[in-house]
């Protein structure tokens, strides 16, 4: 079983039990706890915050409907993550039916022409956004769960229903692509260009 990293697992168990009994308010509190997780995954998969909120809402409603089937075989976060990622991947599939999810959706960012010394914070954000969104969807979702949501390899494997080895190879491939596309950012001294190191730690 995946480890539960939530600081208040007991409170969560009570909210879950009440939600299973049909208490909408309890499920609302549960949704509030996992809102940033669901919206975060959907946003980094689509790059659109309004759309991400809509997808997260859709995923929460699906979770509410499926809650009687949740047997506690994995943590609630993993179970919810499975619904959120499936909802988002289904959306991407509908938007680009001809585009397999293991191919890139966007062209790679303008990594090689970016002027190294003059990257402002907004430009850097766009560079990272474009680089992440250009990853193949299956690699991107693994990277997002690891880097932005802090899931362990085992939790990612359970969420995406893939073997651990596949998680590691997808992460490896995603990072390899990102290293190439974000080369200007990675070569930049961290104390220059507006001190993005501090900003990055704030954003976490």
């Amino acid at each position: 079983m995946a480890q539960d990293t939530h600081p208040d697992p007991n409170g969560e168990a009570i909210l879950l039990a009440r939600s299973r009994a049909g208490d909408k308010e309890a499920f609302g509190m549960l949704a509030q706890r996992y809102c940033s997780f669901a919206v975060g995954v959907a946003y980094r998969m689509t790059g659109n915050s309004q759309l991400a909120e809509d997808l997260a809402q859709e995923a929460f409603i699906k979770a509410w409907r499926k809650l009687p089937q949740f047997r506690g075989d994995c943590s609630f976060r993993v179970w919810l993550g499975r619904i959120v990622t499936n909802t988002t991947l289904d959306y991407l599939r509908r938007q680009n039916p001809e585009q397999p999810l293991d191919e890139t959706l966007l062209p790679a960012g303008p990594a090689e022409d970016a002027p190294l010394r003059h990257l402002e914070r907004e430009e850097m954000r766009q560079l990272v956004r474009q680089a992440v969104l250009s990853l193949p969807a299956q690699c991107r979702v693994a990277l997002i769960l690891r880097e932005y949501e802090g899931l362990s390899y085992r939790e990612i494997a359970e969420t995406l229903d893939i073997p651990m080895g596949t998680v590691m190879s997808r992460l490896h491939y995603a990072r390899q692509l990102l290293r190439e596309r974000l080369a200007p950012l990675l070569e930049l001294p961290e104390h220059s260009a507006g001190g993005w190191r501090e900003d990055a730690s704030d954003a976490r």
Partner: protein
Amino acid sequence: MQVTHDELVSLLAAFADGELEPRRRMLMEEHVRQCAECARRLEELRRLSRALHIWEVPGATAERARALSSALVQMLPHRPAVSHFRRPSWITWAFPAGLVVWGALVEAAAVLTMAFGLAVMAAGLFAPANAWLSWLAGIFPSLNAPGWLETIQGLRDLGCQVLGISSTLPASLWDWLMSFLMPTIVFVSLLAVVCLGMWGWFGVQMARRQL
């Protein structure tokens, strides 16, 4: 245990992600202290991880999460409470399994009945002095030629012996059997075979969906 440089390189990402078990983590810490190439790669992974966090979710505040969850509660459809009683797993399986076994038995009975009806009809065709044979002889006049009658009688006797019925039944009874009872039995059993087949097919499809 001797671990090569290449093996440790393949574990760098897992090391950076905190996914290595203590023994390997210590090996890696030791190796990174001594190997400039691995130290550089590790730093690159860490830089990449930090760089990715420049891209944050816009408007991700606690107030926004509260507003979204309040809106969600209004949108949730009604769902009946879940009973805490859990059916034992054998009940889940016993009911559909019982249905399948029962369906298979009835299906087999229907197939046998149909075969029996067809066999009686075939035997009846060869019974002498009944309307069916006259009708057939009208279509195929060569059946009246010498030698055929003995063959037909032989086949009839064999068929009747196998089926356990008397070949000396009155002609009117044979006619009744051939023109009404057996066709009805064959038709009803054919209907049963088709319906049970469809029932079984739908059952299998539903079971697959449930799994």
